[in-house]
């Protein structure tokens, strides 16, 4: 072990004691896409004791441009990402205990996994799951690290229950629409930059170097050569339902989750998002149209061809995914477009 990790033991922030701490820790990685691949690989190479990875998707050709754990063979075999990730991570470091879960990271599933977890790393592609992670983090006192990227832009923030503000303090509700990699595109350097910040924070938490934790909210744009660190000392919201004095953990409540239903005999899944509000169908149509998607519509709905499926979306955010009966897949298709 000494030789394998010698270069990181040489780094004074880790040392031999830190290496032993890393070895004794269990991280939950939510998502095995771009951020999940990179964070999972860094922790595996660093010698984490145990890594649990949950992801609901399969490896697709369009993932290969930025998702570092996967190869052309994984696309040909249509492997679930969690399984393909596990295979590669085992080849990288056979000492790490890796548990791969193929499925949706619902609040229920996340609560079931919380026991014994030292850190949750956010590698999802939607705010509903992030808000659920945020509530699990507060309820079970587990630090988590927000990370996200789109285009050449990205951000990261470290959340320590009882110390820092939480994601619900910052957003106060689930954004109805966030730019995703499917709508804004993405370049791999922006992915790696978000991963750099998340994984550096992860190592600090795992070696328990609390003073080194970043207190600012980082936001960057590699194409525009921007880097800003927003101070967060006034961001904690006393009335926050996730981290305030009287928490209710609203995003663990079924009422606040996206509802999916198979519409019998129609090869269609209905999606009803938890976020309330009105979508500008006109803006969405012109955005999706300019991205090359085939879009038809009227003042009440839009119909978008998405390769295998067709999505019909209404003004209140409700949608029908035609061409599938798979609830998890339909939700994934929806969140990839709507965030």
């Amino acid at each position, binding site marked *: 072990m000494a030789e394998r990790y010698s270069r990181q033991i040489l780094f004074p922030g880790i040392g031999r004691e830190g290496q032993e701490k890393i070895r004794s820790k269990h991280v939950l990685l939510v998502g095995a896409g771009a951020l999940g691949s990179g964070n999972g690989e860094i922790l595996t190479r660093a010698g984490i004791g145990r890594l649990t990875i949950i992801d609901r998707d399969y490896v697709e050709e369009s993932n290969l441009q930025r998702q570092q754990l996967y190869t052309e063979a994984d696309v040909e075999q249509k492997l679930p990402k969690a399984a393909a990730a596990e295979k590669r991570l085992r080849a990288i470091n056979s000492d790490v205990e890796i548990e791969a879960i193929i499925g949706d990271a619902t609040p229920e599933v996340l609560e079931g996994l919380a026991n014994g977890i030292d850190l949750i790393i956010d590698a999802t592609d939607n705010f509903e799951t992030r808000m659920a992670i945020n509530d699990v983090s507060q309820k079970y006192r587990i630090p988590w690290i927000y990370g*996200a990227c*789109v285009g050449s832009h990205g951000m990261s923030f470290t959340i320590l229950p009882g110390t820092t503000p939480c994601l619900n303090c910052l957003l106060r*509700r689930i954004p109805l629409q*966030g*730019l*995703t990699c499917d709508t804004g595109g993405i370049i791999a350097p922006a992915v790696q930059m978000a991963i750099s910040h998340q994984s550096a924070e992860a190592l600090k938490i795992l070696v328990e170097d609390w003073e080194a934790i970043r207190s600012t909210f980082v*936001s960057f744009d590699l194409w525009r050569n*921007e880097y800003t660190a*927003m101070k967060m000392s006034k961001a904690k919201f006393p009335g926050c339902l996730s981290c305030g004095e009287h928490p209710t953990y609203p995003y663990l409540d079924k009422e606040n989750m996206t509802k999916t239903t198979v519409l019998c005999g129609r090869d269609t899944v209905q999606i009803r998002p938890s976020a309330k509000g009105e979508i500008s169908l006109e803006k969405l149509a012109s955005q999706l149209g300019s991205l090359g998607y085939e879009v038809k519509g009227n003042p009440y709905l839009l119909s978008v061809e998405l390769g295998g499926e067709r999505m019909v979306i209404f003004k209140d955010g409700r949608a029908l995914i035609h061409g599938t009966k798979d609830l998890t897949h339909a939700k994934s298709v929806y969140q990839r477009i709507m965030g």
Partner: protein
Amino acid sequence: MNKVMFFAHLRDAAGIDSITVDAAGKTVAELKAELAQKYDLPKMDTVMAAINEEFSSNEETINEGDVIAFIPPVSGG
């Protein structure tokens, strides 16, 4: 006067990096509403605001000379 900076896709939507407005005395929420209308920006209610590089809630009041940045939360991963 106040410098207002847009980040990420807000900048594309507004078609400009930054603007100068007189926002002293207004709340962050009021400025958001005003800019959303003027530049036809997508919903700004979950866009984060920083005043002088410090995170500020929608209720915060803007002072003369403050620099405001609007950072939309990003969902990709």
